[in-house]
């Protein structure tokens, strides 16, 4: 995307200015403690990841990262100031200190990680480009798409990935390009194309907008890597650790079966892994400047990763995205957190 290129230039110029300033700042943790709230940058509206609900509360998978950090640091998952950011201003807002965590479906790439003065703390959603087809076609894999008419949204990297994939597999396709996601859905609905392509997280949201969502299915194939994760400023390793381990605590919680409902009973658990996670055996928050119950607060108030996933984008949400590669490592996915000990 053109915007992204601009941003990189712009932001790297900014990063130089900031680098000097950042070191002189007081620690993000003490700032957050004295403010009593985490400054968290989220998307200005992305289904399932961050959007205000009917009561004006932010909901979503990315929002839950903010809530987890707030629970770990302040003991209150609601102590978050959400700042909505668009794609262009997100990095500047983080560099200039307007936000302390950026949790806004941001793809982890080399350029962003190494030249912007930022650090990615992990991956909370493994995204990638996928395909949605009409169930009438009877197609079950992307390799059967030779000669298909494909609806794409213009000006995104999606177009490039698609051409690369088809060339690499020696297949032909007929691109039908639209400007907005609504037009793309409209084109698919009207039968102008057999296939619609976009990031899998978006496909689910597009599918709901069809008149008959059950008439379309999302193919299991993913043709590009888009790991999305939270981002923090470089130069404050303590804060980096806090955000990183907040996500790890949610993943470990799921692995050991600790949920928001049973967290309190689990305090009595004999399992040493659970006892260490919930702060009953030793204080693993100390190294980050947190209390021993930091992970307990996350799991009891926000829930574990699996709960957050199902609630926001999974089967309990209208989006109904499969766990797929976002399942835990011992259930066939990529999500793996280092142990707490």
């Amino acid at each position, binding site marked *: 995307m053109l915007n992204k290129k601009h941003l990189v230039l*712009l932001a790297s110029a*900014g990063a130089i*200015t*900031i680098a000097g*300033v*950042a070191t*002189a*700042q007081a620690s993000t943790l003490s700032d957050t403690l004295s403010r009593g709230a985490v400054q968290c940058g989220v998307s*200005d*509206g*992305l*289904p*399932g990841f961050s*959007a*205000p*609900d*009917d*009561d*004006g509360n932010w*909901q979503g998978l990315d929002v839950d990262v903010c809530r987890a950090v707030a629970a770990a640091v302040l003991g209150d998952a609601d102590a978050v*100031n*959400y*700042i*909505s*950011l*668009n794609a*262009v*201003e997100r990095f*500047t*807002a983080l*560099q*200039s*200190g*307007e936000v302390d965590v950026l949790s806004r479906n941001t793809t982890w790439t080399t350029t962003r990680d190494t030249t912007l003065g930022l650090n990615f703390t992990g991956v909370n959603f493994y995204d990638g480009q996928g395909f949605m087809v009409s169930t009438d076609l009877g197609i079950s894999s992307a390799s059967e798409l030779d000669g298909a008419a494909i609806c794409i949204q213009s000006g995104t990297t999606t177009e490039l990935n698609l051409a690369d994939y088809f060339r690499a597999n020696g297949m032909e396709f007929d691109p039908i390009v639209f400007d907005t996601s*609504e037009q793309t859905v409209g084109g698919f609905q009207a039968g102008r194309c057999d296939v619609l392509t976009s990031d899998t997280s978006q496909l689910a*949201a597009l599918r*709901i*907008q069809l*008149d008959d969502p059950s008439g379309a299915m999302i193919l299991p194939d993913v043709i590009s890597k888009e790991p999305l994760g939270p981002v923090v400023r470089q130069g404050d390793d303590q804060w980096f650790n806090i955000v990183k381990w907040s996500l790890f605590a949610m993943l470990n919680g799921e692995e050991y079966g600790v949920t928001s409902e049973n967290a309190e009973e689990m305090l009595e658990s004999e399992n040493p892994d659970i006892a260490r996670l919930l702060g009953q055996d030793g204080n693993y928050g100390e190294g980050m400047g947190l209390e021993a119950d930091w992970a307990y607060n996350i799991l009891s108030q926000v829930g574990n990763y699996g709960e957050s996933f199902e609630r*926001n*984008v999974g089967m309990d*949400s*209208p*989006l109904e995205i499969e766990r797929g590669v976002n399942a835990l490592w011992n259930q066939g996915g990529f999500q793996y957190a280092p142990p707490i000990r």
Partner: protein
Amino acid sequence: MIHNQTIIKERPAPSSAVGPVAWLRTNLFNGPVNTLFTLIGLYILYLLVVPTVQWAFINADWVGSTRDDCSREGACWVFINARFTQFIYGLYPRSEIWRANIVFAGFFTLIAWLAIPRLPFKRWVAVFALVGFPVIAYVLLHGGYFDLPRVSTHRWGGLMLTLLLATVGMVGALPIGIVLALGRRSNMPIVKSFCVVFIEFWRGVPLITVLFMASVMLPLFLPSEMSVDRLVRALIGLTLFQSAYMAEVIRGGLQAIPKGQEEAAAALGMTYWKRMGLIVLPQALKMMIPGIVNTFISLFKDTTLVMIIGLFDLLGIVQAALSDSRWLGFSLEGYVFAAFMFWVFCFSMSRYSQYLERKLHTGHKR
């Protein structure tokens, strides 16, 4: 006697000359070509109006609270209903909405007071509206004083934010614009060149660039301890931008006042400010009402651009609501609602300006 017989009694005009039938004949069915065009026009109107009415009213769903209450055959006004509070107040905390309501009530009362000619104490009300009310509104909306909990500007939004941006922009841009317009016509070289450079600079850059610079670049240049609120940055950018346009509109009015007016005032021994304040500006401003209101209306609509710096104005909050996974696919309803709200405000401004023009149209009437 003879007269009585020859005078025909008064009779109503034939229906072919007056009344609805005559009107139809002269205006719509006046000859075969016009009849044809009328019929084609009516058919097009029929094609447009019937589906619209069916979608918006007959097949529409009005009651409920979730998307399942919508049949999807017509408009789903349930969505607007469920989100109405949010569209008006943004993400302002529900428990504190009474504060916003007081400000709304005060705002509309003051506007009405100033707009309705019969009401007394106009001068004092105007002073209060410009000095007292902004302070009260700030204290109420922002909080942090008198035990009111603080509500950060990130949570302000919806119609409230749109009105705030537009009002501050208008109230700020008019005086700055007048000063700039006078400065540009001044004989003092430094004042004149400053005004020319200022106006040409702000007119030369798009508003998006101004907002973008204010929101993205400015924080990078400021020291990190010093942070100016995002809303304040947008307000300053918007006001300066609009004042440049306002200055040119007012300068147009100043040019139209014959030089003799100012010279006559000077001959009476008036100082510069008296000449301007009592003779030239009242005439110029009156003449430029259409231009000034035009600028106001465009400013009102321009406020939607703050969306790109992550502030949720009326349109922004509608779009954010559209990305809630529980309400995906109701974009048409959302945009129709936003368009209607904008139309109501812009149309009211336009009507008021026409009324004002008629009222002030003294002396030039033919």
